[in-house]
């Protein structure tokens, strides 16, 4: 079965540094998402992306966050100046149907020190 791939699997950074989390969605999917999960808590929606623009974003997705699809295959999440509370597992997901089945990547565990 096709997979969503995410790199890196782990990222450790200092507070205030910029990080870029990378995702390669499934090739024929058009809808892309970022979610995050703080350890032991629920999966929280961050942002959805379609047709090269943000469709919807949550309150968590403030000005420190941005997403980009720099080419035909990658989908990135940038955090400009990381805070301690940004430490979480970040999941990328894609779908071929809005509101349909989501395929999740294995996640990037971000640790902000």
């Amino acid at each position, binding site marked *: 079965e096709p997979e969503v791939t995410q790199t890196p699997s782990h990222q450790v950074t200092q507070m205030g540094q910029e990080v870029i989390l990378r995702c390669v969605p499934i090739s024929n999917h058009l809808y892309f998402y970022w979610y995050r999960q703080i350890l032991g*808590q629920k*999966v929280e*929606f961050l942002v959805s992306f*379609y047709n090269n623009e943000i469709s*919807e974003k949550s309150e968590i997705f403030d000005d420190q966050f941005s997403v980009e699809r720099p080419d035909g295959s990658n989908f990135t999440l940038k955090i400009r100046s990381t805070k301690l509370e940004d430490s979480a597992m970040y999941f990328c997901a894609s779908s071929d149907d*809005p*509101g*349909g*089945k989501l395929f999740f990547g*294995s996640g990037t565990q971000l640790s902000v020190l």
Partner: protein
Amino acid sequence: GQQVMQIPQYQHVQEGEDFTTYCNSSTTLSNIQWYKQRPGGHPVFLIQLVKSGEVKKQKRLTFQFGEAKKNSSLHITATQTTDVGTYFCAPNYGGSQGNLIFGKGTKLSVKP
């Protein structure tokens, strides 16, 4: 904002016992999906329910969508240790992109 309540938060069962998790919304849903997340893993899609009163089965798993499309349940018959994980409901309230907002999940542990 729109929220869904998922209960219980935790469930510990003996292997062979049944398990049920419930998802309740105050507003009518367009559809609802269920996901399973194994410890240390990522959410994996289980099912999508669309129709009022719909019941779907996957081996030992039975999924139901309420008549009013405001609640849903997942029932596992005769749990096995492989059922361990967190089960999330993800209601879809409609809208152009149909973004899924996950419930808090029910963490299932199974004692052999």
